[in-house]
């Protein structure tokens, strides 16, 4: 039993089921991120936790209490919305204390709570202003203040950073993380931005088409994606997924792909899981993250199995700290991530180093990882 349990929850609109048997247990103090493209059902799930949408079947339990039929305000949760949802007709102070006022908290207590929160978020001098007079970042803080002041069991965040510009987004991200570490509250956070998901969460639920595709720590999700969707959705640039064939050569398994000139390239796989056996001689999808393809000097020193791969470089994109190098493998663009000073030039062949420790294989039919 967790602190917040989502037990076999489904949601239907009429005959259309939009969430299918979602089952997640969140522990106290955990930072769970629901991530997925728009329409995956993540916001619906969040709204169901909040009590803003009904539950078709299953249960949501907060602190051992089934809350299916409990009003949003009685669930002891707080929510930060994408648009911040600040009441435009009230001052910042009134916005923050509105919830307390609704619960009948005496004014003195409300003011004290507001002062604490304002101090925590450094918005003391904004309290008399109306939301219309605030910048995006300030609004964001106020929205968080409104949530914090209620001292809820669970914080719900609905894409809170998506309306901010890039720099602010990064700053606020850090700030949220700090707050979480400081206060130790339980958070459920919805975003479509996988970087936010990776940086903030203690656990991630990747959602797609109303299903939880994978639930796990950021590292699990990144290194061992459960399926092609998770593999390509998480990470930027995305994981390279190349049509390939699993072949047995010289007593070892190899992933066979095609180089830029159409020549077969074989990449040896070591310590292959037992499951690979069933795919020998069959088509598989070969997945490799860009940072696992480097120049030989830049390869991971701890890697046990690094394979060399000579291929034509099509484009190089210097990005400051890294240089992204594109090359064509199995007819597809494949991105490699190299040190900025790697000696690589478009139009010339190059010796890539592929860290096969990080390589994963997928079943092209089920799209699940072979493991």
């Amino acid at each position, binding site marked *: 039993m967790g602190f917040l349990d989502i037990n076999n929850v489904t949601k239907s609109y009429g005959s259309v089921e939009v969430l299918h048997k979602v089952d997640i247990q969140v522990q106290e103090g955990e930072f769970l991120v629901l991530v997925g493209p728009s329409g995956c059902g993540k916001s619906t799930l969040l709204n169901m936790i909040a009590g803003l949408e009904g539950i078709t079947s299953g249960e949501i339990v907060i602190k051992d209490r089934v809350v299916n039929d409990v009003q949003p*305000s009685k669930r002891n949760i707080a*929510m930060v919305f994408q648009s911040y*949802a*600040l*009441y435009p*007709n009230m001052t910042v102070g009134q916005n923050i204390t*509105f919830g307390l006022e609704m619960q009948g908290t005496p004014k003195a207590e409300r003011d004290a709570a507001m002062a604490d929160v304002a101090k925590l978020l450094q918005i003391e001098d904004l309290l008399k202003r109306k939301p219309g007079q605030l910048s995006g970042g300030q609004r964001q803080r106020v929205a968080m203040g409104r949530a914090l002041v209620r001292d809820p069991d669970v914080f719900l965040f609905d894409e809170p950073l998506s309306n901010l510009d890039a720099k602010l987004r990064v700053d606020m991200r850090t700030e949220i993380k700090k707050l979480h570490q400081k206060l130790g509250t339980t958070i459920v956070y919805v975003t479509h931005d996988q970087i936010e998901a990776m940086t903030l969460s203690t656990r991630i639920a990747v959602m797609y088409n109303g299903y939880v595709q994978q639930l796990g720590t950021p590292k699990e999700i990144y290194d061992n994606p459960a399926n092609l969707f998770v593999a390509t959705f998480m990470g930027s640039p995305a994981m390279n997924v190349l049509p390939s064939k699993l072949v047995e050569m010289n007593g070892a398994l190899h992933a066979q792909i095609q180089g830029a000139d159409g020549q077969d390239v074989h990449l040896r796989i070591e310590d292959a899981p037992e499951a690979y056996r069933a795919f020998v001689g069959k088509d598989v999808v070969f997945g490799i993250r860009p940072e696992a393809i480097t120049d030989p000097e830049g390869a991971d020193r701890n890697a046990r199995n690094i394979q060399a791969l000579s291929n034509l470089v099509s484009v190089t994109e210097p990005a400051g700290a890294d240089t992204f190098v594109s090359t064509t493998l199995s007819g597809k663009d494949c991105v490699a991530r190299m040190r900025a000073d790697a000696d690589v030039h478009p139009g010339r062949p190059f010796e890539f180093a592929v860290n096969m420790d990080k390589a994963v294989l997928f079943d092209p039919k089920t799209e699940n990882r072979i493991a």
Partner: protein
Amino acid sequence: MAMASSDNAVRSSNFTRALIYLVLILFALFYLLPFGIMLVNSLKPLEEITGGNMIALPQNWTIAPWLSAWSTAQIGVQPTGLRPYFINSIVMAVPAVAISTFVGALNGYVLTKWHFRGATWIFGLLLFSCFIPFQIVLIPMARILGILNISGTAYGLILVHVVYGIGFSTLYFRNYYAVFPTELVRAAQIDGAGFFQIFWRIMLPSSGPIIAVCCIWQFTNIWNDFLFGASFASGGSAPMTVALNNLVNSSTGVREYNVHFAGAIMAAGPTLLVYIVAGRYFVRGLMAGSVKG
């Protein structure tokens, strides 16, 4: 949403601009003409009217017609002028506008923020009521007012206006609230605000422009109504339009056109005032929802 967006990117030459101003001014004259005629002739003695040019300025300016229309013109058997009826109209129009606007706001709030199955149908049903020709409701409405025992009273008239005002006021508020961020409602729900608290504390304070549009529309319609006023108000409580009609449409005797015009302008006064004072909110309010359909 603000008027500042009139910073239009379209540019034009000086000649075109002169032409634009010319067209606009010509149309302004066209729109002003009937009212101008009324105004000019309400300030003339009767002899000047019967003999002269309808748009000529008065040679002898007089405000006697205005005084007469206001306080001494014969409306019924007594020379009361329009004054008492003016008050009747206000007594009737103000509550009717307030109630129909309030009900429309509530309906719009429910229909957009508490959507339930069949809500769209209900809205369709409400909306179609805007288009019912009022002549057909006279007889059955009279019957119902009789049953309710408020026939011939201001209450009856207020009820009638509220009933047939709800369609439009609901339309206005629904369209406005449809683009009002639902997240605010959700946030308030989580904050523990109930159905009515959200309405009072969150929705209404943000509804200024559409309240203005709705009030202008309702006030104009209710103030200008003749059919219901004549049919459902008894003599003493008759609204301004009925009195004006009695003044202007009397069957025999000398037609005091100057008094008629003065009375007509008076009868139009409040609606004109509302349009001029609140007119800019009108476009703003229309922008804020209703033309987004």
